[in-house]
C-alpha cells in the first residue's frame, strides 16, 4: 500500500536517531560515574592545599612572594576550561556567556585580557573573538586528564604574572552541583586573597619556618596550588560534561519518542482514511451498476 510512505520512512529515521541518542545517554551515564569518582577523589588534596594557602595569606612573612601581593590591574589572565566535544546541552554556551559578561566588565574598566583555553570548544569560541589575546591553548585531553596536560599553559600564565604582563589570574569553569545542575563560575587565583581560617591555626603576628628557604618553598607551594586548582577544575568540568550530555541525550530520546508517537497517529489516520475512501468508492460503484 502506497499510503503514507514518506511518513513511514520518517518514523524509521527518527527511530534510528533515537537509538543513537539512547546509546549516547547510556555511555555518558557510565562515564559520568567514573569522572564523578575521580572528581571526588581529587577534592581532598585541592581542599587541603587551599587551606594551607589561606594560612599563608594570614602569615606575616619576611619574604613577600609576588603571588601574594596585590597590584594595580591593567591586564588580567584568564584560563577557560571547556569540553572537547559538543552535544552536551547548554554547558559550554552557558560558560561562554558568563565569560563574555566578565570580559565586557573588564572592557569597561579598560583592562586587557590574555586568554588560555583548555578544550577544543573554548578554542573555537575565543579564536573568533576580537580584542582578546590568545596566549595558549590545549585540547583533546580526553576523559582521563593528567597534570602534564595542563602544566604548559599554567606555566605561560605564571610566567606572565611574574614578568608583570598580567596582574591578576582567573579561571572559568563549570561547577558540578548535581547531575541536573552545572554552574559556570569565575574564580580568582592570583593574587591569593586571605579568607576565613579555622581553629587550631596561629593567630596574631607570626611567620612560618621555611625549609629549605622561603622563596623556593613558596614558589613550589604556590605553583602546586595553582596547578591543583586548575586540575580540579578540569576534572570537575569533565564530570559536568558527562552529566550534561546524559541529560541532553535523555531529553533527545524522549522527544524522539513523542515525535514517533505523533507521526504514528498521523500515519494511522491517513491509512484509515485511504481504506474508508476505497470502501466508499467500491460501494458507490456497486450501487451504480
Amino acid at each position, binding site marked *: 500500500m502506497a499510503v503514507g510512505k514518506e511518513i513511514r520512512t520518517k518514523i524509521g529515521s527518527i527511530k534510528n536517531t533515537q537509538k543513537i541518542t539512547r546509546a549516547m545517554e547510556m555511555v555518558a551515564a557510565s562515564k559520568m560515574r567514573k569522572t564523578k569518582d575521580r572528581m571526588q*577523589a*581529587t577534592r*581532598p*588534596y585541592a581542599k*587541603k*592545599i587551599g*587551606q*594551607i594557602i589561606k*594560612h*599563608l595569606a594570614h*602569615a606575616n612573612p619576611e619574604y613577600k612572594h609576588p603571588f601574594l601581593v596585590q597590584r594595580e590591574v591593567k591586564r588580567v589572565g584568564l584560563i577557560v576550561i571547556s569540553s572537547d566535544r559538543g552535544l552536551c546541552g547548554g554547558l559550554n554556551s552557558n560558560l561562554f556567556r558568563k565569560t563574555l559578561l566578565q570580559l565586557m566588565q573588564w572592557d569597561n574598566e579598560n583592562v586587557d585580557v590574555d586568554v588560555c583555553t583548555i578544550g577544543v570548544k573554548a578554542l573555537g569560541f575565543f579564536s573568533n573573538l576580537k580584542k582578546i589575546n590568545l596566549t595558549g591553548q590545549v585540547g583533546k585531553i580526553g576523559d582521563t586528564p*593528567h*597534570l602534564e596536560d595542563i602544566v604548559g599553559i599554567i606555566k605561560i600564565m605564571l610566567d606572565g604574572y611574574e614578568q608583570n604582563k598580567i596582574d591578576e589570574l582567573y579561571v572559568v569553569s563549570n561547577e558540578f552541583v548535581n547531575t541536573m545542575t552545572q554552574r559556570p563560575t569565575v574564580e580568582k587565583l592570583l593574587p591569593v586573597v586571605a579568607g576565613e581560617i579555622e*581553629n*587550631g*591555626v*596561629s593567630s596574631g603576628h*607570626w*611567620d*612560618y*619556618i*621555611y*625549609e*629549605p628557604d622561603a622563596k623556593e*618553598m*613558596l614558589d*613550589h*607551594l604556590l605553583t*602546586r596550588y595553582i596547578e*591543583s586548582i586548575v586540575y580540579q577544575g578540569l576534572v570537575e568540568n569533565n564530570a559536568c560534561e558527562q552529566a550534561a550530555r546524559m541529560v541532553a541525550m535523555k531529553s533527545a530520546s524522549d522527544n524522539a519518542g513523542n515525535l514517533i508517537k505523533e507521526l504514528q497517529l498521523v500515519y494511522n489516520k491517513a491509512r484509515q482514511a485511504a481504506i474508508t475512501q476505497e470502501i466508499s468508492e467500491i460501494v458507490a460503484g456497486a450501487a451504480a451498476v
Partner: protein
Amino acid sequence: MTMTVHVDIVSAEKEIFSGLAEMIFAPAELGEVGISPRHAPLLSRLNPGEVRVKVSEKESYPFFISGGILEVQPHLVTILADTAIRAKDIDEAAAMDAKAKAEEALLDKSGAVDYETAHAQLIQAIMQLRTLDRLRKRGE
C-alpha cells in the same frame, strides 16, 4: 592525658589519613623531622620516604610518600603527598640506593627486616626509576 595534634595526609588521588596523633615523623628536605603538638608553624618540602604517625604509645602508622609538602600549625599538621612523580622531584641516586637496599633486605630472610616494608620500598624505588627513564626518553 597526652597532648595530641590533628593530622591530615592527602595525596592527589585520595585522603590517606585524618585523625589525632601524639607525634609525626616526616622526611623533610633538610633531614627527618619529628613534630609534637604545639610545634611552631613550619613549611617544608618532603623527600621521598616514610611518614610515620604515632597515634599512641603502642600504635603508629607508617606511610610511604614520593615527596610532597608539609605544613605545621600548632594544632594542625597537613601533609600533601605526591603520588604522581615528576622529573624534578626524583632523586635518582636515592632511588637507586633504595632499590639496592630493598633488594638486599628481600634476600636477607633472617627476619630482622620486615618483609612487607622492604617489598613496598622496592616497588617505590623501581617506580621512580622507571618514571625517570620514561621522562628522559621523552626528552626532559
